[in-house]
């Protein structure tokens, strides 16, 4: 079933067709949400909320347009609106869970260190900058799709991306230098 066929069947109310879309895009949506928020429990909620919103809005979806950017846009809205809500309504129940930080068997120690370094550098970005990096290089949206997803002009996306990349390089370079220094001791 192509996305277009699935959308058509969703529009006539078929749950199974929607399941098809969910299975195809759930990982990219969940990953995007985790990378944006750093919180798996929250991310799960946001993905659910976004997918339900997509299901309810699917009758208005213009057939033939790409599905992924549309879903990502809904997800971004869910993340942003929840961020706004949470700024006021913090409930300190134990909703936080942590990713398994152990390296997977195939990974070399060095690759794992690289990963950890990049993770840290990403964590140092502002929410806006991290958002464009995640949507561009993880969710793999094009610049025009990204611009539409977050509601800014393409030029803004490009400049944010370029500044984010610069900042990451700077941070990784200084981290690397520190490490080289400590190795030299």
């Amino acid at each position, binding site marked *: 079933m192509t996305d277009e066929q699935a959308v058509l069947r969703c529009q006539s109310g078929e749950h199974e067709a929607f399941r098809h879309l969910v299975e195809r895009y759930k990982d990219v949506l*969940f*990953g995007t949400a985790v*990378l944006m928020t750093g919180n798996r429990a929250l991310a799960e909620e946001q*993905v659910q909320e976004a997918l339900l919103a997509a299901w309810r809005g699917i009758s208005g979806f213009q057939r033939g347009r790409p599905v992924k950017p549309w879903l990502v846009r809904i997800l971004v809205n869910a993340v942003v609106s929840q961020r706004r*809500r949470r700024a006021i309504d913090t409930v300190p129940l134990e909703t936080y869970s942590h990713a398994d930080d152990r390296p997977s068997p195939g990974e070399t120690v060095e690759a794992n260190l690289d990963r950890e370094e990049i993770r840290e550098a990403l964590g140092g970005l502002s929410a806006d900058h991290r958002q464009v*990096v995640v949507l561009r*290089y*993880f969710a793999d949206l094009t610049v025009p799709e990204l611009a539409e997803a977050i509601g800014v002009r393409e030029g803004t996306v490009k400049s944010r991306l370029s500044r984010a990349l610069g900042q990451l390089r700077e941070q990784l370079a200084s981290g690397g230098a520190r490490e080289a220094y400590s190795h030299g001791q």
Partner: protein
Amino acid sequence: MASNYGSNQEMERALREHFEAEAEDLRAPQNLWQSIEGQMDLQPTRHPVTQVRRKILGALKQNWFPMMATGGAVAVAASAVIVLSNTGGEIQVVTKEVPVERTVIKEVPVEKVVRETVVKEVPVERMVEKSVTRAPAAQAAPSYTAPAAPPARPPATTFQDYGRQPFVATAEDAVSTFSLDTDRASYQLALSWLQEGYDIEPDSVRAEEWINAFNYGYEMPADDWGFAVTSDVALHPLEGDKHLVRVGFQAAEVAEDRPLNVTLVLDASGSMNSGNRVDTARAAAEAIRQSLRP
């Protein structure tokens, strides 16, 4: 480390590789579809997810947070303690002496509030007034039919606001009791009201039943009959100068295929006279009977 991110192109490539590796750990939960499917037919105009959350939060703010604040912020969540005996035909409620630990938490003012945790005898006899060993076989479980057009308000309930528990200075009175059951009816009721498009009745929100409705992943006890006690502290989310202390009790889980003699005890006390509670209890007993394996 010999990482080289000299140009933006190299940084881009490194990021793509990085995210590809991360993707392995970022798979969506297996049951995602099931959680979504159950909500797909809810009417969005009346209660989209955000509205539902706001309603829950509103009810919490009205009843839960103020109660915790005035109560010196002590929330006790007793985890499931349902003891079904596998020896005799009668229900046994086993309360074991829990080593009384002095819980003194430094650096926060709660030490004035919480000095000792004392587990007292459970007043079971007050909860169980009459035991019924057999449900009438003729009583069939009611079949559920969705209401065609929901009434404007929830069906009449008998909830009332019992007021707030007063603050107790533990320097003067350090002993507290609680019953070892985990009723979640208040939370389940609120959920079903929301799903049918009603507001939550504020009086129906019982903090302990809402607390017990969630799984907190408490540490399990070391043996089959003891408790594990978990306690922690958090800043009050709304009033930054107060702290909340949580003391959680976890009993052993009952293994699923352990053979059991089950005795159902139905409450037939005066409080069961209102509404159709006795009928509901009978129907529930029958439903349980039907679910048992011979």
